[in-house]
């Protein structure tokens, strides 16, 4: 993170530099990368192939560079708007779920108080209850209150889904920060919030970013609530993929790819925050 911390500055422990172990290690890395990448590659191959190639056999495993399927989606009226809606809902979800979840995670990690377990179970239950059933009462409520068909309304529902993640992840992160650092900040003139913001937050930022990314991808990929709760302001998945199941194969793949690619770009864009490691490794 700092300009002064170059790789060689870090104390380098003596490692078992036995070549066999190293080879095994890199073989593992390679295998896992392949495991992740090959299916993505195949999805892209199909997305870039013509309908005949997609349903043909045997497949070459090479893309046909036929953009018609993707173009079909690009030409779909309202894709731009849906993309924008998706992003705004996802960002709102991210903000809401961290904004609401992180304080709760902090409280769970720093305090012992009656009702702690009840709250924890409540959070977990949220994750354990099928959304399609909740959607009806929620939709009725939203229609009555005017939240229906707004980015905020959908973000609220997505926040219900993402909240368990943000609460539990931030809880575990905060548990990893020594209380003493916070105490030091208090004696240096911080109130709780400032100490949190200036000391704890920078240290857990990578983790917070991770849970924010979860929130984002949960919202990004959620179809059901989006399909029920948005009409004018459709999000991309509600727009593109809710009917992919009943669409021809080549469109399925193209639609899948159309949804995957922005998410990949997003993760790529935020990877720095996701994985930034401060000089805390040798605290």
């Amino acid at each position: 993170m700092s300009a002064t911390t170059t790789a060689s500055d870090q104390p380098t422990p003596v490692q078992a530099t036995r070549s066999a172990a190293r080879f095994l290690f890199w073989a593992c890395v390679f295998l896992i990368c392949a495991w992740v990448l090959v299916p993505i590659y195949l999805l892209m191959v199909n997305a870039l192939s013509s309908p005949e190639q997609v349903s043909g056999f045997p497949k070459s495993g090479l893309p046909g560079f036929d953009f018609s399927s993707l173009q079909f989606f690009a030409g779909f009226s309202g894709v731009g708007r849906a993309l924008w809606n998706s992003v705004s809902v996802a960002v709102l979800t991210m903000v809401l779920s961290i904004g609401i979840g992180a304080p709760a995670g902090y409280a769970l990690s720093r305090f012992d108080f009656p009702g702690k377990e009840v709250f924890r179970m409540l959070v977990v239950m949220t994750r354990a209850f099928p959304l399609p059933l909740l959607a009806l009462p929620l939709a009725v409520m939203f229609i009555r209150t005017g939240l229906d068909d707004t980015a905020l309304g959908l973000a609220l529902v997505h926040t219900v889904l993402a909240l368990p993640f943000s609460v539990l992840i931030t809880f575990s992160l905060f548990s990893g920060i020594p209380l003493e650092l916070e105490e030091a900040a208090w004696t240096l003139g911080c109130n709780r919030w400032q100490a949190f913001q200036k000391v704890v937050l920078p240290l857990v930022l990578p983790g917070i970013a991770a849970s924010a990314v979860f929130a984002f991808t949960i919202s990004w990929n959620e179809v059901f609530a989006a399909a029920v709760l948005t009409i004018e302001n459709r999000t991309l998945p509600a727009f593109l993929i809710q009917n992919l199941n009943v669409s021809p194969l080549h469109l399925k793949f193209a639609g899948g790819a159309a949804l995957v690619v922005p998410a990949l770009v997003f993760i790529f864009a935020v990877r720095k925050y996701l994985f930034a490691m401060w000089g805390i490794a040798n605290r």
Partner: protein
Amino acid sequence: MAEIVIKNVAKRFGGFTALHSIDLTITDQEFMVLLGASGCGKTTLLRIIAGLETPSQGEVWIGGKRVDHLPPRERGISMVFQNYAVFPHLTVFENIAFGLRMKKLPQTEIDRRVNRTAELMHIEQLLKRYSGQLSGGQRQRVAVARALAMEPDVILMDEPLSNLDALLRLEMRAELKGVLADSKTTTIYVTHDQVEAMSLADRISVMNGGKIVQAASPVEVYRNPAARFVGSFIGNPPMNFLPARRGTNGQFQVAGLELPGPVAGDALDFAIRPEDVEIAPTGFVATARVIEPLGAHTLVTTEVDGKLFRAVLDSDLKVAPGDELRLAPKPDRVRWFDPETTLAV
């Protein structure tokens, strides 16, 4: 005005009582040193004053204001933590500037103070490093600098120099004392280094098992320990104790020697500091057991009447284990303790 008054403070951790009803007043601008065995509750007391720990009972007043329910930042204190608590994500500079930024001081003032305290602590060349790139002693100095830079009314230091070498300690000590006196800061300073305690303290509070046993000036604590514990705890090596019994002539019999003692009590404990004995023909009969050269002096551990007895003698003295010596206590340095209450008589 930053007088600290601690009234009847106790602290229990579950079933364990770390502090029993502490009463202590540290006057404004006083330099109070807390001394005590490991685990006796020094850190706990500091943390209660700082507001990091809630006392199980009692009151804490700072500068005439009851602060029990104030958060640390409103108590006008700053603190050096026993294990430093240097922020790992900030450079040394930012660590020291941390509290100043919280006070929203102008940047020039921050620079000035950081540089001044860093120089004081000899870490000016480390300002750009992170704590992971510092040695233990350097980290400790960052913690001290961070607290000093605040220029608080009250500073609490928990063994702030424990990881420094003697030379640096000596220097830091002098500088700390000077800086804190100049800034009229009330100081509570935990140390286990008695030389440090002696040379820094206006008063020393000796703690034992969660209680304050004696709070008095260094010389008083050293010369006239209020309790046997103080005598045995302070002084390196500590005081020697021997059982004494009043003889028929009113004098006390101590390991074959006859000494004048206090008027009250029949069975008392005789006590003398190792450096207050001399080789003299009228002394205790002592068999040397261990000889430890300490540089200018030699610490001779002997056996007197079957009891351990230490003497600090000139290093020119040639003595070998097994030798028999005669060790005479300097009469005006002899102290007496009641073996039951352990208090000085």
